[in-house]
């Protein structure tokens, strides 16, 4: 299927943002289209765009109502103008970007000290820690989107055997915590309330305000986890 011809719908997200939605799902083809459209808009934005936010299967454009209304001289709503401009963009095909697909290897300590939900997770799944670590580290994951917190990468999809609905009650989660929710896996960049099952922790900083690139991962990166011991974690 030509990825440029994926069906979509457009709707308003309040009066100052608009969302193009490709269907409420986690799918790599759809997500690739979202990211391609994101780059298309970033490289050739139209006046009045404030922010472009790609997600799993949608892309949202925050815009400046006053600027857009100034451009269209008030002949129609800002929403109508932005909708038309986006429809035009969507008519254009997106050239395949020649990106170096980055593969980022992330060390994770899967010891209970750094994995508060590990024991419960293992008993719910009736599996050993070794099995879990093997299943979680064997796959290469795709980063679908960055959202929620600065640098929080939504990755997937984990093996069916370690998929698990999120916890009913969120609790405070340490920075670097590696979690599972449904078929997603992710890393908390900052201490935060969280509802994902924490099965390990990485010593890497997913977010560092003082780094030239504060955010470690970006959408469409490939990620592999590898297991490190408690000692390795502490001396990392």
């Amino acid at each position, binding site marked *: 299927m030509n990825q440029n011809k994926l069906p979509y719908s457009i709707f308003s*997200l309040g009066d100052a943002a608009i969302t193009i939605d490709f269907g409420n799902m986690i799918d790599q083809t759809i997500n690739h289209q979202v990211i391609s459209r994101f780059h298309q808009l970033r490289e050739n934005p139209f006046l009045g765009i404030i922010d472009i936010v790609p*997600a799993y299967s949608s892309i949202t454009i925050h815009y400046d109502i006053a600027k857009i209304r100034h451009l269209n001289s008030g002949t129609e*709503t800002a929403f109508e103008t932005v909708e038309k401009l986006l429809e035009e963009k969507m008519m254009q095909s997106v050239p395949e970007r020649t990106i170096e697909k980055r593969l980022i290897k992330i060390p994770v300590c899967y010891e209970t000290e750094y994995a508060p939900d590990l024991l419960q997770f293992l008993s719910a799944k009736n599996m050993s820690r070794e099995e879990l670590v093997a299943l979680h580290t064997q796959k290469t994951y795709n980063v679908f989107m960055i959202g929620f917190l600065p640098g929080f990468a939504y990755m997937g999809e984990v093996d069916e055997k370690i998929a698990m609905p999120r916890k009913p009650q969120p609790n405070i989660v340490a920075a670097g915590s590696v979690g599972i929710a449904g078929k997603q896996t992710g890393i908390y960049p900052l201490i935060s309330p969280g509802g994902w099952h924490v099965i390990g922790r990485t010593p890497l900083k997913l977010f560092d305000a003082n780094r030239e690139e504060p955010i470690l991962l970006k959408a469409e990166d490939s990620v592999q986890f590898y297991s490190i011991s408690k000692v390795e974690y502490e001396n990392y």
Partner: protein
Amino acid sequence: MKIINAGIQDTIQDSGRYGNQHLGINPTGAMDKYAMQITNALVGNHAKEAVLEMHFPAATIMFSQSALIALGGADFSPTINGEPVPVLHPIIVNKNDILQFHKPINGARVYLAVAGGISVKSWMDSRSTNLKAKVGGFNGRKLQKDDHVLFRLAYPYPATQKEFSVLPWKADIKVPSSSQHEETSQLFYILPGFEWSQLTTESKEQLTNNSFELSQQSDRMGYRLNNIPLITTLKDEVISSAVSFGTIQLLPDGKLIILMADHQTTGGYPRVGHIISAHHSKLAQLKSGDTIQFRLTDLQNAEELFINQQQHLLQLQNACSFRLKEYFKQKN
């Protein structure tokens, strides 16, 4: 200026850190941007200049140099050197003058603007404090006792008076709900959200007919409402996608949350509605225990109201800059 006593949450904020939401970096910025813009206008600043946002109890501040300042947003009965001063007026303060706040009269957030702006390092094109990421503003945190906050400019006018002086004009705006009207709930226009249609008929009626009280869990991130749980017919989980200031989400327990300045960039809860931009200012001046009501409107009306607000602001900016010029021309 020096913080003599810290308030409960005093942070440096500007119009927000935009352009980085694809990295998960949330915009933060002033809760009441309109009040921030007006306060900036009163001292002749650019609308987006960084200001100090304070809640009640607010900080006690000593000025280390002469400055042209203004207070806007909430009225916490401010005094300078013990003498009451009004909000929404430009005020010339001198070295060692002490600004204090005594009692919340109306609103929830007061803004202090200083002519020339507050000097803090910009991070990713904004001076706003991101408390969660501990970055931006004053070392990424709220102000503490003994902090020295520097101004970007020296006082640009000759200091002639011995006493502080309140300049004789006032920004003409509608004040936020006054305490006398605490019984009546405030009306907010909303636009239906993407999952609005998934609410049951009964829940839709509850959303537009009932009053909602702001719970204790109401802060810069969002306002949780005390409401009868609403019900959706949604079967599938909503996949995470972008949210916005003013988005009303339905939490798994059926309660509502209105997302505010420190909201996260994306979320996976149903979006039942969005409060229109023109009402964000009065939304930002609510506090726990206040009650609100929602009324559906359309995009046309939402945009008109916003444009009207912006035009009013523009007039105010022009008037303020004219008055300031005239005033200091006479003084020279």
